[in-house]
């Protein structure tokens, strides 16, 4: 089922598993027109495995719902990760539910990008994943972090999204003025929010707050540990 050709022998191989012809063709077009990669197209998980074993692609792009199987992409990743922990996997999906995203990340997916994201975002995601770095669509990231923070074990479950965003920026060491600018609110609001967070988390000082935040919040690259 190898349809793609390559002009350059040094170009890397990308395996794309999706049951929708538009996505397969689209991927082939993006990577091959730009002479970035040789593209292997698989319309089913079985084809995907076969091509993976035969070609050892550099990057695997996989959809989550393939044919009738509910979230079949996830079981593909689980199987793959049992013996291959290195090959970067980028999920290209329409699923935006934080729980599904979280589960994919827990299984060891390297990146997660939405199918209806703009071209630039898809290319950025691919570029990062190719280097083995994590990528998560910014719009998903806040949902995932929030959903993580909401789990009953988290010390942040009583924080509002605004407080959580503020805390994250504090953890990054940004001063109030910058945080206010980034969140598009006034300096006073941020000061208020900060004292609220201290109340809710029982922190007495800003350094203590930073320590709590660094311990429990994901790193600045958007990766949820």
């Amino acid at each position, binding site marked *: 089922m190898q349809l793609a050709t390559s002009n350059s022998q040094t170009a890397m191989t990308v395996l794309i598993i999706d049951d929708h012809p538009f996505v397969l063709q689209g991927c082939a077009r993006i990577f091959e*027109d730009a002479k970035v990669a040789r593209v292997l197209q698989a319309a089913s998980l079985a084809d995907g495995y076969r091509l993976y074993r035969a070609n050892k692609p550099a990057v695997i792009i996989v959809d989550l719902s393939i044919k009738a199987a509910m979230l079949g992409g996830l079981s593909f990743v689980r199987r793959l990760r049992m013996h291959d922990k290195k090959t970067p996997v980028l999920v290209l999906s329409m699923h935006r539910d934080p*729980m599904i995203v979280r589960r994919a990340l827990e299984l060891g997916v390297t990146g997660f990008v939405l199918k209806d994201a703009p071209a630039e975002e898809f290319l950025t995601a691919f570029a990062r994943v190719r280097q083995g770095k994590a990528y998560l669509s910014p719009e998903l990231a806040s949902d995932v972090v929030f959903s993580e923070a909401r789990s009953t074990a988290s010390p942040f479950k009583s924080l509002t999204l605004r407080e959580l965003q503020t805390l994250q920026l504090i953890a990054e060491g940004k001063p109030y003025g910058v945080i206010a600018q980034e969140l598009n609110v006034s300096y006073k609001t941020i000061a208020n929010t900060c004292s609220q967070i201290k109340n809710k988390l029982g922190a007495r000082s800003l350094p203590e707050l930073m320590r709590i935040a660094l311990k429990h919040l994901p790193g600045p690259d958007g990766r949820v540990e």
Partner: protein
Amino acid sequence: MTSAYDVQRSRLSAWWHGIPIRWQVLTAIVATFIVTGLFAGSVSVIDARQRAHVETEFHLALWQQYIGVRFSELMSERELDGIEKQIRADLSRVRHVSATLTFRATGRTIELANSPLQAQPPERNETAPQWFIDLVQSKPEVRNVDLNVRGVRVANISLTAKPDDEIAEAWILLRKVAMWWIIGLVATILGLYFILGYILGPLVSFASGMRELEGGHYDVRLPDPGVRELTPVATNFNHLARALEKAKSDNTHLYRQLIAVQEDERRRIAADLHDEVGPCLFGIMASTSSIKRFAQDLPLEKCAPILDAVHEINHISDKLRTMNRGLLARLRPVALGRISLEDLISDLVTSFAGANPDVSFERNFKNLPRSFGETIDLTIYRCIQEGVTNALRHGLPKDIEIGVLAHAHNGNPSTIKLYVADNGRGIEPDTPFGFGLSSMRERVRLLNGTHAIANDPRGGTRLEIEIPFPATTTMAA
């Protein structure tokens, strides 16, 4: 008429209409009894009065004549000195009259006879109460007999009517009649109380049946009242209840079908939007990015319009994407059935929290299985969606708490309790239920659940829903 009178009257009428019909009838009958009793009593008093009058009149006239004749006799026999003794002896047998002899010259008075009742047998020795005596004998009747010696009045005998005996007789009779009258009255009240209870029993059950119908309990049926006039009423009532029950069951059935069809339609549309629109957008995006790349190799004057067109296509794609996401969010949770119910609700709450960064959302999930089945899961999802939307729209709350608790019975979940509580302003008392809320109520009702929305006394609103599990359908056989 004064307004105070009117107020009194209306209060009386309100009281009268407020008491049960059994007491109305009893009150009317007792009032009639008392009026007739008083009338009968008055008649017997008037009768006693007339009889006492006739009696005393007769005795007074008799004794007046007798004293006159006797005095003439004694005068002719010149036994004036013994007159007192003679007359006393004569008067010893007198009834109903007392006599006093007054000598004109000296002014001396002698009681000739005063205790006529002493002559009565002891068992009749009974006196009427003073008020009765006063009633029967309004004023004492007095006759004077002048005793003349050769044309000169020497003494005077005053005869006073004393009809005590007669009055006592009337009193005893009246008392006896009154006693029987009271016994009759009590017996009538008791009898009527039970008879009216028996006759009016069906009406009471009609009234409670009507209340049941009003409350939407169409399974109520009335027993045959056993009263000829009321049997058709009960039969018709039962027909009506049966018809209502049928209509309700038809309605439920239709609503169920409506919701099922709607959900099915939504599922298909959502699945298509989810599975097809995304890939199409991706294809468009891939094609435009490839066009863009090719265009960049062209000279600038040829490249610029192509890039403009690409930009336009990307802009339209963006619009489509936003629209698609909005449609999906409204249509159906695509993740339903793919992830656990708890995760599904968590995601819903997360999306609310993302859209409302200043509201704190608290979750309370307990004993939730992976799924209660699609219908219940979807109902829970929609109820929370509607409840939170409502809380955010009306209350401007700072905190919203969402709870879904499954109560287990012998290890199996038996009731699902869910609530959405906020600390906002609470809902205005007259806020009409929107379509979302009524549709939520119907969904809960279809699962035989209960639904309540009320202002929390501590402030804010609390929506509470209980759904039995395993679901019992409301479909009547």
